[in-house]
């Protein structure tokens, strides 16, 4: 039961965190200069966006949940199951970030879901 909650946190908080970070980075704007000093500047600009802080908090939650699950289950099960975040990701991209998710992309996401289901069935 506890492990189920941790999986939910990895997927939910992880995807939510990435969506927040994505939204923050879109506010920062496209990175065109890859010199170290410029990258440090990008980090500081990103940290001034409140979405970045929300994202970091959610991702930290997902990270510690991942550690908890990894102490009990194999990497080759845990990691594929967390691919369920793809559904959440496509939905979030569409409804939270206003991105257009093409039918082809939905088909790919569906294949990923089927793959995850097969991994879960073949778990033992």
């Amino acid at each position, binding site marked *: 039961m506890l492990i189920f909650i941790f999986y939910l946190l990895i997927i939910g908080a992880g995807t939510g965190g990435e969506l927040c970070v994505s939204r923050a980075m879109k506010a920062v704007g496209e990175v065109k200069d890859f010199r170290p000093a410029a990258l440090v500047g990008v980090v500081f600009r990103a940290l001034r966006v409140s979405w970045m802080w929300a994202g970091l908090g959610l991702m930290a939650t997902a990270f510690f949940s991942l550690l908890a699950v990894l102490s009990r289950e194999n990497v080759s099960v*845990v990691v*594929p199951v967390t691919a369920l975040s793809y559904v959440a990701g496509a939905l979030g991209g569409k409804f939270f970030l206003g*991105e257009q998710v093409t039918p082809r992309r939905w088909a790919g*996401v569906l294949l*990923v879901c089927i793959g995850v289901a*097969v991994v879960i069935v*073949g778990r033992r």
Partner: protein
Amino acid sequence: MKSSAGLHFKTYLLISLMVIFGPLGNVLLGKGMKRIGAVSIATPAGALDFLSRVVSSGTIWLGIASLIIFFGANMLVLSWADYSYVQPASSVAYGMSALLAHFLLREAVSPMRWMGVLLICLGVLVVGHTPPRTTEPG
């Protein structure tokens, strides 16, 4: 919509970094956590014990370093590419994690589990042929 060669090149370069360092980080975390073992974190004392074991593991710190590289590449790529493009494209990393878990951690992976991982990678291939950006910069 923007689809210049340069945009594609830097997108693929950063996604490659994500595909290498993400799985490596996961496998190192898995190795470190297996050594620590299942810890009850239901009580504050248990949670503290869990945290202190985590921060004193070198393997976990290596895993965290790998994941920071992954996170940096992920953040940069998200400054121009769509989230729903980057996330599935980088999911080749899921197959990579299973391979590394099998060969580095010697995990027994059933044929069915490999099949599932293969399906995940196929899903990624289908998604990979969609444009990297559908929203206007701004």
